[in-house]
């Protein structure tokens, strides 16, 4: 029997792996991708049963187009973090001294948009250049490589980094990073689909999601 196929926005992949282990690794597979890419695939008939989007709009769009069985439900709320690998994280006001900052492309990822809005609010005088990755994962890679000194990533990505290097951004300076999921329409609904859907919103899952660096709804 084919396992349940869960398309997952790349930023949630590490946490999704944990959930999968909990749910039963043999019963489901994860299909990571950028949210936009996954949307394109799903709307062209990709055989995914569940979609964990990185935002609200994409999930809603699928629902509006009749591609989803259920209305979108929030499964996680992301937190944005400033990360300066190898150095103590600076005060936000000190950011003005950075010539370049890394973020996910605001056009492609809500975390990018959030980073943009935070900087505009906290350091309106900043005149530097944005280095944009296609996703928070790519932003993370740019920072890991050491080529860029500081940037905004998902908190979930830097949980294991030394605490001093990371500074969590106040949720007030950006729109909430609401990540929503939908159950997708399939010719024949997967027997495990509903079970996973229930599991995703179960307390156990919420606990894991919270442990993964998200605010569970």
């Amino acid at each position, binding site marked *: 029997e084919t396992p349940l*196929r869960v*398309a997952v926005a*790349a930023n949630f*992949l*590490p946490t999704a*792996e944990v959930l999968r282990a909990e749910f039963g690794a043999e019963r489901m*597979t994860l*299909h*990571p*991708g950028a949210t936009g*890419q996954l949307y*394109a*695939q799903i709307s*062209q*008939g*990709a*055989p*995914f049963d569940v979609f964990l989007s990185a935002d609200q709009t994409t999930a809603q769009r699928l629902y509006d187009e009749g591609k989803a069985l259920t209305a979108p439900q929030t499964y996680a709320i992301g937190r944005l973090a400033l990360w300066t690998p190898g150095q103590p994280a600076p005060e936000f006001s000190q950011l003005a001294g950075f010539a370049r900052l890394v973020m996910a492309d605001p056009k492609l990822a809500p975390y990018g948009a959030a980073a943009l809005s935070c900087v505009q609010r906290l350091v309106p005088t900043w005149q530097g250049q944005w280095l944009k990755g296609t*996703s928070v*994962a790519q932003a*993370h*890679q740019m920072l*890991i490589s050491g080529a860029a000194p500081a940037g905004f990533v998902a908190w979930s*990505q830097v949980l294991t980094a030394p605490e001093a290097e990371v500074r969590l951004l106040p949720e007030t300076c950006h729109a909430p990073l609401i990540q929503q999921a939908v159950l997708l329409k399939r010719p024949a609904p997967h027997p495990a689909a509903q079970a996973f859907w229930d599991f995703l919103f179960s307390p156990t899952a919420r606990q894991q999601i919270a442990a993964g660096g998200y605010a569970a709804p």
Partner: protein
Amino acid sequence: MLHPDDWQALALTLQLAALSTVLLLLLGTPLAWWLAQGQGRGRALIQTLVALPLVLPPTVLGFYLLLLMAPSGPLVALGLPMLAFSFSGLVLASVLYSLPFVVQPLTAAFRALDRDWLELAYTLRANRWQCWREIILPLTRPAFITAAVLAFAHTLGEFGVVLMIGGSIPGETEVLSVALFRHVESLDYARAHQLAAVLLGMSLIALFIAYRGDRRVAL
């Protein structure tokens, strides 16, 4: 040393690369031969069309291919099975995307091939197939090696198209490059480095063997 999933991806990748390369050579050779026969506007156009997919970013190409292969797309309308998110779809996409790497060097080589060798071989009772095996292939071997190496290596590393068309279904469409992407996205850099090392090591050996075997055709 590798995770079983990665082994599966590796096997799938080799399958894809090998199959694509074989198909590319089978398809590209007659096409290149035809292209080499003349200089007409039609041929230049075909040659251009062959190279054209190359100028699109792989994910974008993948997107258009997806539109083409989708249940509502023209290929299905033509009666083909739905190829998106299947291994066959990957093969089709890889072939299309790597076609210029095969057609381009082969066309150049076929054009440079002196037609007299063939005609001489015909007078010496060689049939078409023997002409190919005994004259054309040996005399244009460097171009075939170029074509095979570029096609194989490019299929190994290609990722955007494959991810878009394939959707990373383990055992079906999750090839090594996609697995590598997955490791990187899930911040599992250790596994990513490991996989990259295996990929590089294997390719190093395969390419080295190909190049060592590429003895100069004495002219």
